[in-house]
Every structure is written in C-alpha cells, then in structure tokens.
C-alpha cells in the first residue's frame, strides 16, 4: 500500500535519512523503532509532506506522492496522529474532532463522531471543554480519534506514548490494538520498543538515518541486538 524506495531527507545541508526503503501492506501494522534522533519521525514527516524529500520515491496505492503538499497527502488517504498530540488548544474537543473530518464531504460525519465518543467515552464528557485543558492522556485519545475522523486508509502514529504515565501508555497501546483489529493499516513510530513490537506485524529498526534490521514483531522482540539495545533485558 505504502512503498518507500531509497528515501533521503535533508535539513539544509545535513542529510538525516540516507536512502531507506520500506513497505506497509494493506491491513498491516508496521512499527519503526530506534533511538531518539535515528530518523523515524523525519521519515514520517517526509511521507506526510511536512518536510521535503531530497531523494527517492514515496508511492501510496501505486500513486507517486513524493513531495506532495501536506493537505494533498491527507486527501490521498494518509492521516498522521502527530507527536506531542498537537490538539487545537482553544477549540473544544468536539470542534477538534470535526477538524479531523475537514477533507470529508459525506453525511456520515455525525455518525463517526458518535462512534468516536463511544470508543473514547472520556471525549464525550469533555466534548465542550477546550482541548488545551484536557490531561495528556485525554489529549492523546483526542488526537487518535481526530485522526480516525478523517477515515484514513493509512493511519500513522508518531510517538503516541511519549510523555504519558505508564498506566496511560497501556491504554494507548490497547487503543491502537483495537484500531488494528478494525482492519486499519497502521504505521507506528515508538521509542517504547516493547510496546511497538508487541503491536506490530512487522518492524524496522532505525539507526542513524538507516534501516539496520527488519522482520516480524516477534522476530525483532527476540533478536539479540534488539533485546540488548532497545528492550533492556
């Protein structure tokens, strides 16, 4: 579904992604793991049109989306739930969710809104509260629900567990597992490698802007290097 070939990303003269290739097939949950600064988030931003691609090719459902502008990528069917949640702080929870459906023109948006409130009951309680006043965990749920409101074909999660309490991290993991069960194609970036590998069908390990290892979630969970460097046992 999503195919990346020899992707390069540079910030000014400094190249941070040195030609990576990866694939996400329909219905799959693929995780990108690796240390801080390994290039996972830059890869996501390049896919979503937030940073320019300096080399290589990104195709989605056979269509070349390399360097498409951000809003066009969303229209193509890729939605990202960004790192740090990035809710619209002064808008109500409800309006944040409606913004998620910005590109849609169908009349099922209210039904989807209802579905999201059912899936995340806390959002119903907070419906008319400014999103900036929600707790970190609630904002994460809002950001996830907002991303789903776009009815994406591919949903990208960038560091969904970052900065959350351990109990909330478990909630987030359970939520992503539920979304995966609905058949959604997911690309997940996580520093919490164990959580990512448990959720993922397949995973890629990033180091210094390159992919150094790939395999199924289980394979990587038991790979000696991964265990030693990333799972810490």
């Amino acid at each position, binding site marked *: 579904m999503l195919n990346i070939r020899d992707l390069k990303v540079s910030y000014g003269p400094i190249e941070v992604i040195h030609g990576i290739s990866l694939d996400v097939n329909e219905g799959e949950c693929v995780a990108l793991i690796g240390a801080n600064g390994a290039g996972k988030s830059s890869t996501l931003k390049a896919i*979503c*049109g*937030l940073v320019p691609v300096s080399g290589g090719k990104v195709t989605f459902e056979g269509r070349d989306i390399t360097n498409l*502008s*951000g*809003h066009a990528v*969303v*229209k193509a069917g890729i*939605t*990202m739930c*960004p790192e740090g949640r*990035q*809710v*619209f*702080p*002064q*808008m109500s929870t409800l*309006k944040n969710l*409606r*913004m*998620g459906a*910005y*590109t849609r023109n169908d009349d099922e948006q209210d039904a989807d809104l209802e579905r999201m409130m059912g899936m995340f009951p806390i959002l119903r309680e907070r419906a008319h509260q400014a999103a900036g006043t929600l707790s970190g965990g609630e904002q994460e749920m809002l950001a996830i629900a*907002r*991303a789903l409101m*776009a009815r994406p074909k591919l949903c990208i999660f960038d560091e969904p567990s970052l900065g959350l309490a351990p109990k909330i991290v478990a909630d987030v993991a359970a939520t992503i597992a539920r979304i995966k069960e609905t058949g959604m194609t997911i690309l997940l970036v996580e520093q919490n490698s164990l959580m990512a590998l448990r959720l993922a069908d397949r995973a890629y390990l990033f180091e210094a802007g390159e992919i150094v290892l790939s395999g199924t979630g289980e394979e990587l969970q038991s790979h000696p290097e991964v265990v030693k460097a990333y799972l810490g046992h």
Partner: protein
Amino acid sequence: MIEILQQIVNGLAIGGVYVLIALGLTTVFGILGIAHFAHGSVSMFGGYLTFFLVASLGFPLLLAILVALLIGLVLGVLIEWLAYRPVRNASHINAFIVALGLTMMVEGLNLEFFGHEQVVIPTNLSRIFDIGGVTIPELRLYVIMAAALLIVAMTLFVEKTKTGQAIRAVAENRDAAILMGVNVKTIPMIVFSISTALGVCAGVMVGSLFAIAPGIGQWLVVKGFAVLILGGLGSIPGAIVGGLVLGVTEALAAGFISSAYKDVIAFVVMIAVLLLRPQGLMGKS
C-alpha cells in the same frame, strides 16, 4: 442618565468601525503573525473609491459600496500574494518592513488617485431619530446596524463554516492544520480577502460619518492595534469587546471631560486594563 446613554450610542458607531478594522488585523495576525500596518490605508482606499464612484461616476451609494467591497476582496488576495507571501518563511522583520512599505505605497496611491482634499461620502441620510430621549442621526444608526451585521456574519463564518474553522485551526497550530488536510496556502488569501473587505466597509463608514483625508488611515490602524492589544492579540471576541470598549470610552471622555483629551483618556484606560490583564481582555494568559 440620558446623557450617558447618548454618549454610549455615539461611541457604538465609532466602536463598530474599530471592531471592523480590528477583526481584519486580528485574523491576519492570528494566522500569519504579521502586523499588517497598511490595513488602515487600504480601508481608506475603499472609502475614497466609494466616494469617487458616487461623486464622480454617479453610482447609487449601495452599488458603489458593493463595488468597493468586491474590489476589496480582490485587493486582499493581491496583497497577500504579492506582498506577504514572498516573505512567509523569512524572519518577521521582513514582513514588518513589507508592511511599512505597503503602507507608504497605498498612502501614495490614494494621494495620486484621489488628491489631498478632505472628502465626505455623500449619503443624503439626514433624518434624526429620537428614541426615548436619545437622539440618533439616521446615518449613525445605519452604521451601527451595518457594523453589527458584519460582526455577527464574521463570527458565524469563523465559528460555523469549515473554512472558518480551518482559519482558527491554522492560527492555533499550523502543522496540525496541515495534517487535517487544510491547504495552508489558500487560507491566508481568504483571510486577507475578508479582512480587506471588512476594512473597506470601515473606510466607507469613516468616510460617511466623518471624512477621509491623507493620514486618516494611519490614525485608524493605530486605533485598530490598540484594540487588538486591549482585547488580546489574535482573539476575535477580543477585537469585538476591545473595539466597543475603546469607542465607548472615547465617546464618554469626549462627552463628559473634553473631546481634546478623548484619545489620552482612551489610552489611559487601555494602559490600566493592560496593567491588570497583560494578556488583554479576552486573551489567553
């Protein structure tokens, strides 16, 4: 009591003009972080244009206003596209300089096209209403009503339409707005277009209530920014409350103390508000 009501009504008319100017400035500031100084001069261009259409070409007033409004919509797009878009990713000082240069250009064009004479847009609205002891000239009443209508329309547009919500979203978090599928290139154009049209309306109101002359544009934009700071930068409710507070304060000061000191008093009130609420009346701390 009647006297106070009278001054408040007087203040609402000029307050309405301030709100229209401030709404334009605040939405532009909200999404681009630009202090669009040329806004006052562009508004005056709208006023001059209306005057020219009515006085020289014999257009009926409402048609002239409509034409000026449409030209304002287009002018806004051009200003964004030609003046501000090229410096979008540059440091803020560049946009600041562009804004100052644009102000001088528009002032110069106004002078070139319309001369340096003071002009008043002829309206032929001379009736005076008396409502419970408060006298309201017909023109002033229409100005208040038109301003109210435009303010309500703008608020509804921002709160209830998809484009309006996208404008808010870009102001609150530009990157997240892109991820929602908002085209962040067209939003500034729409904002400038609407802002300029509101500015043109304000220019027409100033031109018919008072007069248009060189320099009035700068006076208006200074008041507009005062309203922005009073109400809270980037806040739409702030622009509305701030504009009305400034207008009414000025009118009360002029009515009860001295019209020579009305600006001083209005600004003293503004400073007092900012000492107590540095973020402005409706700003988020």
